[in-house]
């Protein structure tokens, strides 16, 4: 099969995946306790009002019809109305998504930049002190609750040393957000040339992003080290060594072969972080998707809950898709 046909097939796979996820989310929704019509209409509403709200929401239809209506709405990007913020869930999510994406993307880049070189270095020099320290870190970091680290670092770096800003929001309260283009404060403030805002945004990002990177670099590091040392045992490396090639070139050969599983691991971590950052967002009052999710869940805002679940899952499906396509670019051997 040619690469083109593989790409098409892989893209088409997304359709049943998204359909499956949407189906599960719909039925999850129907299990929620409480009558959504009652919640929307309020506790003072009469029976007639509740009945009309039920009709408006389509709750009086048979479940199968409700399912089809729901699928149709989702296909049009309509995730329903949040009864808590009384705006469209799609709008709420789009408004908050950039905050989360900015945080987890920066965290992931940091994690990758810590993990890959460290993994390579330790695989090239096994048994050294660096190697031992790095593998201890890889083990420890994976076991650490990220929310605990965040609190601990807030205590030390904000509470005691005062080197980071207060863990509230994405920029100083005295500043206005930059004019919205991408929704990412760092990018937007560069675009508008607003340097104080850029500085403030970076200062606010530093601690949460570092916390996430510190914890989630662990698994990537472990993967990098093990695949790198496996690659270094390969025949082609023996041959390269026997041919007297310099160390850097041997390392580069090994890296090309070790990179795929590391990319996969990084992709999985990205997909996990969109949900896993919830706790960190909560601690730093980040105002992103994660905080929206917690708010929605604690107030049984069922449209918002299902919207968040759907969005984050589709996001991780897209990440996995990208990883698969990256494979194609990185590894010329892959011919599906």
């Amino acid at each position, binding site marked *: 099969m040619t690469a083109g046909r593989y790409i098409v097939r892989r893209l088409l796979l997304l359709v*049943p*995946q998204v359909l*499956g*996820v949407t189906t*599960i989310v719909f039925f*999850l929704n129907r*299990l*929620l*306790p409480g009558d959504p019509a009652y919640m929307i209409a309020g506790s003072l509403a009469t029976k007639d009002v509740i009945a009309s709200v039920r009709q408006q929401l389509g709750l009086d239809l048979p479940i199968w019809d409700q399912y089809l209506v729901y699928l149709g709405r989702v296909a049009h990007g309509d995730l329903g109305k949040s009864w808590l913020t009384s705006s469209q869930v799609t709008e709420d999510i789009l408004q908050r998504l950039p905050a989360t994406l900015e945080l987890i993307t920066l965290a992931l880049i940091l994690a990758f930049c810590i993990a890959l070189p460290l993994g390579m270095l330790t695989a090239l020099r096994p048994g050294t002190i660096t190697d031992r320290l790095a593998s201890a870190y890889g*083990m*420890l970091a*994976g*076991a*650490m*609750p990220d*929310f*605990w680290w965040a*609190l*601990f670092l*807030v*205590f030390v770096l*904000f*509470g*005691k040393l005062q080197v980071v800003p207060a*863990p509230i929001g994405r920029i100083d309260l005295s500043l206005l957000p930059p004019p919205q283009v991408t929704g990412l404060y760092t990018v937007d403030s560069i675009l508008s040339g607003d340097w104080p805002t850029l500085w403030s945004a970076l200062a606010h990002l530093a601690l949460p992003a570092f916390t996430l990177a510190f914890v989630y670099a662990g698994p990537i590091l472990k993967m990098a080290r093990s695949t790198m040392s496996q690659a270094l045992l390969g025949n082609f490396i023996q041959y390269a060594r026997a041919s007297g090639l310099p160390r850097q070139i041997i390392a580069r050969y090994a890296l090309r072969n070790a990179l795929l599983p590391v990319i996969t691991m990084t992709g999985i971590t990205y*997909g*996990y972080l*969109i*949900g*896993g950052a*919830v*706790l960190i967002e*909560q*601690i730093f009052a980040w105002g992103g998707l994660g905080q929206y*999710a*917690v708010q929605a*869940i*604690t107030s*049984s805002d069922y449209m918002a*809950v*299902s919207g*968040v*679940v759907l969005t*984050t*899952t589709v996001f*991780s*499906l897209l990440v*996995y898709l990208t990883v698969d396509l990256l494979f194609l670019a990185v590894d010329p051997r892959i011919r599906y």
Partner: protein
Amino acid sequence: MGLDSRHLRYLIKTRPSALVGAAIVAVALVLAVIGPTIAPFDPRTAIPGDQLKPPSFGHLMGTDDNGMDIFSRVIASPQTDLTIAILGTLGAIAAGIPLGLIAGYYRGFVSEILMRVSDIVQSFPVFILGMALVVVTGQEIRNVIYVVAVVNCPIYVRLVRGQVLFLRERPFIEAARALGGRDRWIIREHILPNAIGPVVANASVTIGWAILLTAGLSFIGAGVRVPTPEWGSMIAVGAKNVYTGEWWPSVFPGIALAFTVLGFALLGETMVDLTDRTRR
């Protein structure tokens, strides 16, 4: 896999981290049983007038802003966290083994459906799915256990299926079939005993993750609630104090949590290594 004493001594020498893990797990398990009984104060009751006291001889780890003794709550917590994590993992395994056996042994339509459903369940971000499920089913400990089971079940379906696919082409299975053995007998007597090793090994890793998930859910208020002693909710109670400099209500439960998860991870890692066919 036989484990005689010589083998065991060799393991201890070559894998000290597993020993550390096993020791931590042992302490956690003992505390899960006797923790609440040996706690110097009642872990569920506030002491009037003793709010937010720093660590001292009276209160080894201080008190939180409800006036509960933190040391007592920290050592009483394994009963909550470990019960949820272990029962949840057992649930995932109990459902995952039969489904994995079916998916691996009977290839075709059923297997295809099972694997696709596993794919979809696994594509949900674990934490978001966990939060949503706990809220849908109601915030009770029982439901957190179900959630742990549901999010981990696909791992075991996949693991067992992989084992079965590997085993079903072995000569001894063919021999069993040639003897005229029925599918059910072959699966039960020949495949299951050989497929179970990696499942047991992975259980420890899953328990570690499950403890983190439970604590995380409780931290945002979608799991175990005060006054039930639980590390995640204790960290949450102390979070607001951390900003103002009172570190002890959050730091101590976090350390206990991290050590416990680390213990299960270290032990699990070694067990997975030892049962991994590709590495032996």
